[in-house]
């Protein structure tokens, strides 16, 4: 058994599980806060806190243990019904989650000593917990029958951990301390099973304990202490008659300094209590042991393994295209068989490819899960009542795309709450419901994922946007821009129409970054806004970044690939429509717009065939600056290509997004339109909507 294993692999598992646990807690708390949670939710939040505490304890992360302990105590009271939910509790617990997250972050970064929890927060949690103790038995009618039995009882607990209890991340010491917390204890340790030192595996648990506990807690509380180890220990909990109460041992440092009960409970017969396994099935939370029954389950797969698989499939795709090419060239007699085989291979390859790609796919709900909290906190901070509606959480996206879209989405939702939704007073004046709505939906559209963020706020004030753009010299006062072009200005760096610059958004940074991030993913974002009714942002994203549908084209003797999604159209250009702007820049008149024309052979330094425009072809593509015409020698076929990174295999090259291997084994470079336009020096400010309209 190596230390390395424990501190490495187990540590990572702990970090992942804690991450999940915190997420679960947050979601649960938000449900409770919104009034949609029930006792199952409380229980699941409590259990999540409990395992985080246990895990933290295993790794000696005292600050995490300390904080979760406080949170857990409070949750325990809510669970038991001795404390009713309040938004104050919600806020305190959510703050605790935030602190735990930042602690976990330091652990993730390799630290063994996360920062101490803030004493202010601990005090807040403590006072909420204490307040409950004082108020509960008398003033609050409790929904839980457990609270009625507030008399002190005696429990005899035989706790025999299995050897692997500690190795599975549980600590008997913590469990004993938990019992201490319930009341006064007398702990006896039994070492019958303890082998001599030479034979001792120090990570196995060989000690067993007998605990006598006098407490006002119920047997369920006692069982709950062991809820996480019930499969890893032999446990017997018996209730004993209170008269037999043994005085607490002098060495038992019970924090609750209560003397043993002097008045025996009248009806407390010495009834042996069922072991927790049965009890949990019979108790009021029957769902717990089977909580995974409806859950299809999931596995954690290391991303590097998936990537290796994706690479392999890429190779397979290449072999298949090679065969495919061969089949076209081979002699007629074997042709039919070869073709059939190739077709089969093609089918298999595609299925395998899709299957493997699916492994990398994650539901977008992972990102959506961050939003309710954001909306709630922002709403409070701004004094706005905002409801968040999310749909399409199960829409799947490539993990990499998902990670990169997360921050932009958060930013956009934040914008909607901050700038979009009006204050409740203003909404009522306008005859709108006081509660604003932000709706985010995700869905599949063809080979892409569509994400829409809609709010029913004030919409974007186009005239103010225009005034600001003029003020900053982005457009001339005389410029006639279409509404869509004006709206598009919100993506311009340095433009923001927020009346008051808040600390939330409105510093004018963001929207340009949002659009850049989305474009880097091969996606696009569009804005639509109706004054007084709200704003709708539509984001289109590719499903994956690893394989793309490519349009092949030729420049001289070289084949290049252009992402098919960015191709708008292709046409045979006419010299008469070309105008030179000087400094080598050329524009092409496409119907009623001028678009920049890029001679790719020149940009890539290749001897192109087509000297005259009519000899080549013009591919009109999307670029960050709007439509751009790429002048190429010839269009070849379209095919799926597996993207190989240039940076990993060679080095970064301007104008090239990556490379791929074609069916004939040759390498083709994938043209990167955004960086090509930068190379060419297409200025974005002249054409905010991409195309400038012809005066004619």
């Amino acid at each position: 058994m190596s230390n390395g294993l424990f501190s490495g692999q187990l540590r990572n598992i702990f970090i992942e599980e804690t991450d999940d646990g915190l997420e679960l807690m947050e979601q649960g708390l938000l449900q409770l806060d919104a009034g949609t949670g029930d006792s199952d939710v409380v229980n699941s939040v409590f259990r999540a806190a409990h395992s985080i505490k246990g895990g933290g304890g295993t790794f000696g992360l005292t600050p995490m243990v300390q904080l979760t302990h406080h949170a857990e105590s409070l949750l325990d009271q809510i669970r038991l019904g001795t404390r009713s939910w309040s938004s104050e509790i919600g806020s305190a617990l959510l703050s605790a989650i935030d602190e735990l997250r930042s602690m976990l972050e330091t652990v993730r970064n390799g630290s063994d000593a996360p920062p101490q929890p803030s004493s202010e927060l601990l005090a807040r949690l403590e006072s909420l917990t204490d307040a409950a103790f004082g108020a509960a038995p008398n003033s609050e009618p409790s929904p839980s029958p457990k609270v009625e039995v507030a008399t002190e009882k005696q429990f005899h607990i035989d706790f025999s951990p299995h050897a692997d209890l500690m190795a599975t991340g549980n600590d008997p010491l913590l469990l004993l301390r938990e019992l201490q917390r319930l009341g006064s204890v007398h702990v006896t340790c039994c070492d019958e099973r303890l082998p001599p030192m030479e034979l001792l595996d120090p990570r196995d648990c060989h000690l067993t304990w007998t605990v006598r506990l006098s407490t006002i807690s119920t047997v369920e509380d006692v069982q709950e202490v062991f809820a996480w180890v019930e499969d890893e220990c032999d446990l017997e909990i018996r209730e004993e008659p209170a008269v037999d109460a043994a005085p607490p041992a002098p060495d038992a440092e019970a924090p609750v300094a209560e003397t043993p009960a002097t008045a025996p409970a009248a009806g407390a017969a010495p009834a042996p209590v069922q072991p927790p396994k049965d009890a949990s099935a019979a108790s009021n939370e029957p769902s717990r042991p089977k909580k995974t029954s409806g859950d299809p389950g999931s596995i954690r797969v290391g991303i590097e393994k998936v990537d290796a698989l994706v690479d392999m499939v890429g190779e397979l795709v290449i072999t298949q295209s090679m065969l495919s090419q061969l089949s076209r060239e081979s002699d007629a007699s074997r042709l039919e068989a070869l073709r059939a085989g190739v077709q089969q291979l093609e089918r298999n390859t595609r299925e395998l490819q899709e299957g493997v790609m699916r492994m990398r796919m994650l539901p977008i709900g992972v990102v959506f899960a961050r939003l309710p909290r954001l909306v709630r906190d922002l709403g409070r901070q701004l004094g706005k009542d905002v409801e968040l509606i999310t749909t399409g959480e199960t829409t799947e996206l490539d993990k990499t795309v998902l990670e990169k879209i997360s921050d932009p989405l958060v930013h956009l939702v934040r914008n909607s709450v901050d700038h979009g939704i009006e204050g409740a007073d203003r909404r009522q004046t306008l005859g709108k419901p006081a509660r604003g709505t932000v709706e985010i939906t995700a869905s599949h559209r063809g080979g892409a994922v569509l994400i829409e963020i809609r709010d029913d706020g004030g919409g974007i004030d186009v005239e103010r946007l225009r005034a600001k753009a003029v003020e900053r010299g982005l457009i001339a006062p005389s410029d006639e821009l279409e509404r869509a072009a004006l709206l598009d200005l919100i993506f311009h760096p340095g433009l923001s129409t927020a009346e008051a610059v808040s600390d939330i958004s409105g510093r004018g940074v963001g929207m340009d970054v949002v659009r850049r991030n989305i474009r880097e993913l091969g996606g696009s974002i569009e804005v639509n806004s109706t004054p007084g009714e709200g704003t709708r942002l539509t984001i289109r994203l590719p499903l994956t970044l690893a394989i793309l549908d490519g349009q092949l084209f030729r420049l001289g003797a070289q084949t290049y690939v252009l992402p098919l999604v960015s191709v708008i159209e292709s046409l045979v250009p006419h010299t008469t429509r070309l105008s030179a702007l000087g400094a080598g820049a050329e524009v092409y008149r496409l119907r009623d717009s001028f678009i920049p024309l890029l001679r790719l052979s020149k940009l890539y330094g290749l001897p192109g065939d087509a000297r005259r425009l009519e000899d080549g072809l013009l591919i009109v593509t999307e670029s960050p600056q709007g439509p751009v015409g790429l002048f190429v020698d010839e269009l070849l076929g379209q095919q799926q290509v597996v993207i190989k990174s240039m940076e990993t295999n060679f080095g970064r090259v301007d104008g090239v997004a990556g490379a791929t291997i074609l069916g004939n084994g040759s390498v083709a470079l994938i043209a990167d339109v955004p960086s090509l336009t930068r190379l060419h020096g297409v200025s974005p400010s002249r054409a905010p909507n991409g195309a400038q309209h012809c005066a004619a």
Partner: protein
Amino acid sequence: MAATYTCPPELMISKVGDLHDRLVEALQAEGDVIVDASAVERIDGAGLQLLYAFAKDLAKSQRSLHLNPSPVVRDALAAAGLTDVMSHTLAEEPPS
């Protein structure tokens, strides 16, 4: 002359391997043993079990252990019900 073994600040399951090896060696040597646990800041069941197992085996071979516990260790011994059985090994509690 008693041999002294110093416990690491974290006497946790992830770190008990080393100390176990050293204490097994200590058992094979002779004479009394001092285990200095005064710098222990964190201890769990595994750490506690190791200290206890060592004390027990040492006592079997008629040798004595002087355990110098930090407050954390003292507290853990109490929680696990080991204060009484270990009391003969414990250094005097400093006046608080």
